Every structure is written in structure tokens, then in C-alpha cells.
């Protein structure tokens, strides 16, 4: 599978502005797809990389609605908002929801393209991060459930003896598990193992309760 080209999704109810903006982005070298409404865009949302450039004020579903819907979707593309005039409450709300940028419709071209670039870059970063995590997590897939339990204790810095007592097995069995884990993951030290598990976010959000 070749590296997918990021697509700039432009959403605006004003056909004339939609065409003009798409034209500029294409001339600047982007792949562009246009939508006359937020509903159209969400219906065609795929997996691909890119970003969304949308008008804030549209009949029916407006820009903020689109952003909220996007956050619940699988492909959380960054959003660049365009507006006739930025009023403070709307801007604040959009930024809180994680708007990449907030530009007026007549912002300088450089600012607009920079914002699109930033959004695409952020999307790319997110995707790279996702890929890395996925790859890391893939390495842990070969571990058995018992090995994962042992790994958890190891990452939390427990000694073999403690682990053996908690699990009700012999210290030797724990050692065998540890050897299997390090060889499967290809790490040499406990420190390295801990770093790897943390990077994969393996035990995030599961606070440890020690007896």
C-alpha cells in the first residue's frame, strides 16, 4: 500500500466561494474535495488523511456541529474554520473543541495555506503516532495472558519473589515467564521493557492496586 495523498475537504454552502477556494488550494498543489454541506461531507467521510476547511456559518448543520460530529467519527480530521467575521464567543468555543485554526474568509493566502499545512501535518503526526502505537502493540500480541500479567507486575517494578507470592507460583516459573517476554519482545533490560510498555500505552488508565 503506497503512502496515501492527504486530501483537503472543503465545506461551504456558498458555491462561488467553494469553487474559488478549491481552485486556490488545487493551484497550490493540494488534492481537494468539495462539499456543499456538512451532511454531504460526513456521508462521504473515509479513512484517508488530510484536513477539513469549513465555513462556520451554514444553514442546517453549521461548522461547530460538523466538528462535534467529526470528533465522534473514526477519522478525526483536523478542522480549519473560515468565517465572515470572527466573533469572540464562537471562536473560543471552536478552539476549545480543538479547532486547528480559525481564519476569516479573507485572511491572507499565506495564513490560509499555512493553516492547511499545519492541519495536514498534525493529521500526519497523529497518523504516524497511531501507526507506531499499532506496531508496538502488535509486538505484544504474541504474549500469552499469563505473560501479560507477569509483565504488568514487572513494569510496576516488583521483584520476582513478590510476583510469585501474588500469583501463587514458584519464583522459578516467574523467571521463565520473564525470559519468554524479553525474548519475544526483543529487549534486554527491565528498563527497556518498561519504556516499551509505556510507549505502547499498555497499562494506561488501569491504576494498580497492590495488596
Amino acid at each position: 500500500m503506497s503512502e496515501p495523498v492527504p486530501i483537503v475537504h472543503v465545506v461551504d454552502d456558498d458555491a462561488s466561494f467553494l469553487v474559488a477556494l478549491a481552485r486556490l488550494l488545487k493551484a497550490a498543489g493540494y488534492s481537494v474535495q468539495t462539499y456543499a454541506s456538512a451532511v454531504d461531507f460526513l456521508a462521504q467521510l473515509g479513512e484517508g488523511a488530510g484536513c477539513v476547511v469549513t465555513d462556520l456559518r451554514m444553514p442546517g448543520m453549521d461548522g461547530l456541529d460538523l466538528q462535534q460530529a467529526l470528533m465522534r467519527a473514526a477519522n478525526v480530521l483536523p478542522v480549519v474554520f473560515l468565517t465572515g467575521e470572527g466573533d469572540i464567543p464562537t471562536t473560543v468555543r471552536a478552539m476549545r473543541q480543538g479547532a486547528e485554526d480559525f481564519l476569516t474568509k479573507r485572511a491572507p493566502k499565506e495564513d490560509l495555506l499555512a493553516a492547511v499545512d499545519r492541519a495536514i501535518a498534525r493529521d500526519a503526526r497523529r497518523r504516524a503516532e497511531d501507526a507506531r502505537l499499532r506496531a508496538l502493540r502488535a509486538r505484544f500480541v504474541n504474549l500469552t495472558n499469563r505473560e501479560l500479567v507477569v509483565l504488568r507486575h514487572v513494569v510496576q517494578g516488583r521483584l520476582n519473589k513478590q510476583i510469585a507470592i501474588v500469583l501463587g507460583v514458584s519464583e522459578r516459573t516467574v523467571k521463565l515467564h520473564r525470559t519468554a517476554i524479553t525474548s519475544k519482545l526483543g529487549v534486554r533490560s527491565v528498563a527497556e521493557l518498561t519504556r516499551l510498555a509505556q510507549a505502547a500505552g499498555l497499562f494506561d488508565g488501569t491504576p494498580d492496586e497492590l495488596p
Partner: protein
Amino acid sequence: MNWMTITWPMVAAACLTLGLIELSIGLSHHPRAPRLLFALSAFTVACVSGLELALMRTDVFAEWWLFTRFLDTAVGIMLVTLMAFIWVYLRTGRKWLALAVPCLYVMGLAFDFLPWAPPGSGMTYQSFSGFRLVETFGGASFYVAEGIPNPWNVFPYLAVLAQIAFVADASAKLRRSTGERRATVVGGAIVFFFLCGGLQAALVDTGVLDTPYMISWAYLPVLVAMSIELNADVLAGARLAGVLQERERHMDLACSAADLGMWTWDIGRDSIWASRRARELFGYSASESIDRARFFRSVHPEDREVTDRAIEEMLARDMGYEAEYRVLLPDGRTRWMAARGQIERDGSGKPKLLRGVVLDISARRGTELELQQLRSQLAHASRVSMMGQFASALSHELSQPLGAILRNAEAAELFLEHDPPDIEEVRVILADIRHDDQRAGSVIDRLRALLKRRNFAPRALSVSDELANVAALARSDSSSRKVRLEIDAAPDLPAVMCDPVHLQQVLLNLIINAMDAAESVQAARRRVTVRARSRGASEIEVAVSDSGPGIPPESLGRLFEPFFSTKADGMGIGLSISRTLIEAQGGRIWAENNAGEGATFRFTLPLAESAKPS
């Protein structure tokens, strides 16, 4: 000198006086014939009277013979002129009777002038025998002639009888045809005195009565009766003239009190008579002759068309003339005038006269103008504040085309940097730029029209067009507030008479209010509908309905009062100004709650004259 020598001349003098009076009137007034004939009869009666006096005082045969023949002739002329007078005056006599009178009399008179007859042998006597002195009361005495009566003397009496028959017949006919009692009285009096005169003469002729001839005595009352009859019209006319003068004085007083100028336009001859005041008002000199063209030259050029139309309409239809226009005075000032008039037509229905009054209404117009200016200023202030309310929607409306223009221009720059430059793409872009520029321009035009300070200028316009204009302005505000805005104007609505900006202002005000109301319910149910329909044959009704919570019943009656508002941040200006604007155009505005949800504001506007069914 005795009573006889006094009374006969008195009779003659009375006759002469009557005759002179009628002669002088007859010479200067139409119709001449009756009065001149009357004067001639009166003079003859005076002659008759004089001759009677002469006859009673002479005992010389030659004198007697001369006077007798003069008297007979004078009586003849008297009879004929009186008959002619009655013929001309009453116009109802029979011709053959009228002709019989002179014929019969001439046959009798002929005996007086037969060349072969001896002197003294005439109409009355075959032969003269002598004079007799008769003593009478008061110590007076007179001569009477004696002789053998002429049997042919019957002719003059037949002539008198024919005359009596003629008068009686003519006055009876007049009575029948006009029912005038006067005719009988006057006719009866004439007949009576004719009879008396004839009878007395006959008795003297035949020697039965020892008196002088008293024909003139009998004819004096006849003359008086006829003179009264003749002058009844003059007297009535004089009385009427007095009444008329009094009326005219009243009219003058009324006109000067009301400061009215009077005028009459003779349409056929195209000449206008104007009273002194009317000439003053228009700045015409007292002697200047005025016609339609002159009048139009003094009307302000802007008002000429309206005034001309008022005149044409008045001529074409049977309606009063009403116009208000400015007049250009010779010193360059203008003056507002109101004219009212009534048309007068001839028998065939063709316009003949236009009579009317003019009034200087500059003062009233000045106040009206001031009021109108104040209203315009207030309306303008309210418009500006209303536009402020949806400034953000409007800036969005403007930034769309402006943004598109900018992006297109930037794209074009990039296409030109390509090698080779993509000219075809740039061409397409330029067309788009032009289109967006026009879009932005039309938003600005609409805004400018609404924000401009201007005077009240009603004209015939289409409600649908103005609705479309307003909808274009309100559309982006409605979409950002998630209110569905529906415009529903019936096709082929007739034109209304209205100031376009004021109509837009009222529509915007009602639509913004409706959207405010609709916004307080959940987004899916927010709806504002504007409907325009014909209402009867003379007006159009526009209804703005919302799906909001409706108007609290206690507020319904006060909505259009100034400074009354149901909104927390409302000033209470919009609706009161809307009412002022609509009422200034001759319409009404009111509000009601809907049966289901929300409220409806309605207003009416009168149709333009051109759109009314004729």
C-alpha cells in the same frame, strides 16, 4: 278753466308719461317691439284725449270737422297699435281676428275721407245739423255736435268687438297653456275697459248720452294695466338683481373670509375667468387673459403631469375636479394650491364649463412637509438601528463574495506562474470574479438604499419584488439562527402605492421580530412565513407569521405604542414606526395570535391607481 279742461289734459299727460317711460326702456332693452308699440299706443291715446278736449270746446264747424276726422284716425291708430302690442306680447292671438280689426275700422274711417262727400258727412254723421251747449256740474259746459247718424258707423264698433274678441281669446289661450292667473286679470281688465270705451262712444254718437267723448278715459286704465303687465318682468328682474347682489356679497364675504379664489374655465373657448384673489394667488395681472396653456405654465413642472391627469379624468368621467399643485410665482417663489371644481355639461353631455375655487395651502403643506421630514428622520434612525441588529449576518453576506474574489485572484496568480501560464483557467476565474463583484455590489446597494437618509417618495411598486429584496438581506441571519424563512407571494399581485424603502423597513422589522420569536423554540420548529395576497379589489395584505410562543394577550393591544416592548433589550420603536409608515401610505397594521402556535402580524397597502380595476 273748469274741471274738464284740467282732467282731460291730465289723462293726456298720464298717457304721455307712460309712453315716454316705455319708449326709453324700449330703446335700450330687448325685446324692443312690445315696448315701442306700447309707447306708440300711449302717445295716440294722449292725442285722442287732446282731440276730445278740443271737440268739446269748439262751436266752429270747420274746426269740428277737422278735429273729428283727426280723432277718428287717432282712435284707429290706437286700436291697431294696441292690437299689435297684444299680438307681439302675448303671441297667442288669432291672426284672422287680428287682421279683422284694422280692416273693419278702415272701412268705417273711409267715410270721413270720401272726396265727393260734403264736409261734415263722415263716419259718424251723414250730415251735420248744429252744435248744442250742454251745462254740467261744477259750472262747466261743453259743446256737442248733432246730426243724422251714419248707418255705416257700425264698422268701427265691429272693429272694437273684434279687438275685444281677440284679447279675450288670446288671454284665455295663454291661461290654458301656462296657467297664469295674471293673463286672465290683465286680459279681463282690457276687455272691460274696451267695452266701456266703445259703449260710451256709441251712446254719444247716437245722441243718447249728453257727454263729450271719453274714449281716452277708458283707454288710460287699459294702458296702466298693460304697463304693469309689461313691467312685471322688469320689476321681478330688479328684485332678483337685488337678491343676486346680496348673494354675491355673501359669496364675496365667504370667499375672502376663507381666502378662496374663484375661477371659471370656459372649455369650448378655452378662456379662464379668475377672481381678483385667484389672480393674486397665481400672480396674474388684473388684465392678463388666461387659458389652459397659460395656467399650465404657472404650475410647477413636477406637478404638471398630476394636474393634467386630474383635469383629463374629470373631463372623461363624471367626477369632481380635485388637485393640489405648486404654482410658480413671477418672483420665483412657489406656492402650494388646492383646487376644487365642478364640471357643467351641455345638453349633449359635452363638458362646457369648469367652475371652482383655489386655496393657498402653503402653510398646511409646510407643516405636512415638516411632519413628513420628521417621520422620515425617525424612520431612518430606526432603520439604522435595525440594520445594526443584524450587522454580523450582513458582514457574512458580504464576506462570501469578497472572499471568493480574493481566493480566485490568488488562484489566478498561481496559474499565471505556471509554465506555460494557464490562460484558459485564468479567463474562467476572471468571469467568476466579475460575478462575485456584482453579488457584493448588490448587497451594498440594498444596504445603501436602506441606510440612506431620504424623503418619503411613494410610487407604484411590486410587493413581490420588495419581498425578494428583503428576503435576500434577511436570509443569512435566518440561517445562522436556524429559522426557516418562507416567502409566499401570490403570482400576479397588482402594484401598490408605497415608498419602497419604507415597505422594506416594515417587512424587515416584522421578519426580524418574527425570527426573534421563533428562536425561542427548538431549532427544528423555528419557522417564519411571509405571505402576500390581494384583499378585496383595492388593497394587498401582507402577513408575517412565526412559530414562536405567541404574544401575551395583555400586550396585544399595546404592541404598536411607542416605547412599548415585550423584549428584554427592545426599545419599543420598531413597531410604532412601522405603524406610522404603513398609515402614511394609507394602510393598516395589526397583530393577532395564531390558532395553533405563534403570532401573525398583518398590514395592508392600497393598490396603485394604475392597478385598480376601472
